[in-house]
């Protein structure tokens, strides 16, 4: 079933919409949730919450790229679940590692704080990604959006783990410079 048909099912309020979503995007959503949480029961619950989120969002929304739409909802739910878990007990999942890596992109302590909505930050990062070579862009997105492990990215791209680590290191530094250039302090 193609995405537009699945979206039509949501608009018709047919429960088959969930079944078809799970059939087509279940593994994709589970991988995103697992990458963030590294916990199967939590990931499963997170995916179910994502389906509910999609059910509540369509209608009125009519996403043009359904995979990105559901992936984004899953990721957001997984991140907030991770944060909740972390508040209860430190550690768990690879998200702590991602956060520590991304520290490089933040301005130095003491910089003026600008409150920016996530969307504004996203737009700025999109502009940053636009200027990167395709390979670097994919490495960045696979690591920080999909939370893929570095070894997995290296294998997929036919690069060494050290090379991917090095590219990510440089990209974080570049992103920091990009934020500074755009006057963004997160």
């Amino acid at each position, binding site marked *: 079933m193609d995405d537009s048909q699945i979206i039509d099912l949501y608009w018709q309020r047919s429960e088959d919409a969930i079944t078809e979503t799970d059939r087509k995007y279940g593994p994709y959503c589970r991988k995103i949730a697992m990458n963030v949480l590294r916990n199967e029961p939590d990931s499963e619950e997170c995916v179910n919450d994502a389906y509910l989120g999609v059910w509540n969002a369509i209608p009125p929304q009519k996403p043009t790229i359904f*995979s*990105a739409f559901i992936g984004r909802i899953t990721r957001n739910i997984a991140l907030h679940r991770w944060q909740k878990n972390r508040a209860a007990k430190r550690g768990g999942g690879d998200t702590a590692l991602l956060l520590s890596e991304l520290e490089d992109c933040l301005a130095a302590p003491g910089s003026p704080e600008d409150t920016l909505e*996530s969307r504004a930050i*996203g737009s700025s990062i999109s502009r940053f990604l636009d200027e990167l070579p395709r390979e670097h862009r994919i490495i960045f997105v696979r690591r*920080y959006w999909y939370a893929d492990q570095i070894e997995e990215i290296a294998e997929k*791209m036919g690069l060494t783990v050290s090379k991917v680590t090095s590219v990510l290191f440089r990209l974080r*530094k570049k992103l920091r410079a990009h934020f500074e250039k755009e006057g963004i302090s997160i």
Partner: protein
Amino acid sequence: MNTFRLLEGIGEIDDRFLLEAEDFASSPHRHPFPRKILLRAVSAAACLAITLTGGLLYLRTTQIKQDSTQDSVAEANNAAPDLRQAVPDNSAGMEKQQEAALYSAETAADMPLYEVDGLFYEQQADPAILKQTGLPDTIDEMEVGEPVLTLEGGGTICLYKPMEDAAAVRVLQSENAEPVFLLCTETDSPRSLVELYGLDSAEKVTSIAVRYSNGTETELDEKTCTLAAEALCGIAAEQPDHNAETDSMLVVTMRNGLTFTLTYSKAESLLQNFSAAYPIGENLQKLLEIK
């Protein structure tokens, strides 16, 4: 300062980037072999083919001994272009050399980055930063220690003799240039204070000061310093927690002059640096609370 907000922000990037990365992930491996290896294999095969063809022709046209054919093969191989410019000391060194070359071969606008055993180094010549780290502005040739890595594009990463056991400090020795300091700015995994700074004994510490957010600094008395240094020696290294709030900084000065800082989060009972979080026990926490 909130990395979590940044991670949320990354979640809002344009859909097209997700599609691009999705397409990539669902497609078969683009390079079943890393491009460099493939290139070398192709070059080697081409050289071998040329050598064999030459050797066969030679054998057919002249009645020569088998050992002289082997010589010609060796000669042809020697004449073949070598993709590696520098000669590694051993096979393990060769691997390292190639890795390091990958990092230093980026665009000139980027700061060169070198990796040695999972520690990433950047050149540092800023006198203020060097001073803070307890390093001199210039390096005497006599202070350059054993080489640890030969770089493909020329140059060698060496130990810095006065601080040989501190992996966080290395020297870049290049031809026709003054040696410069390389300071570790990132690691591939959490590293202990022993690995980074050679802090394996309290005797190596001369002073520990606590620097507060208001700029004031208190140096621990001798007894407290020794106790704190002993506690630091055996401390475990974990993944850094950059969401932890920083209450103060710990400035540790070693007998060899090396000075490093650790941030201190009272709520999380953690000391941290760029590489790791070091969970501290109640005793050390009490010592650090002394004003």
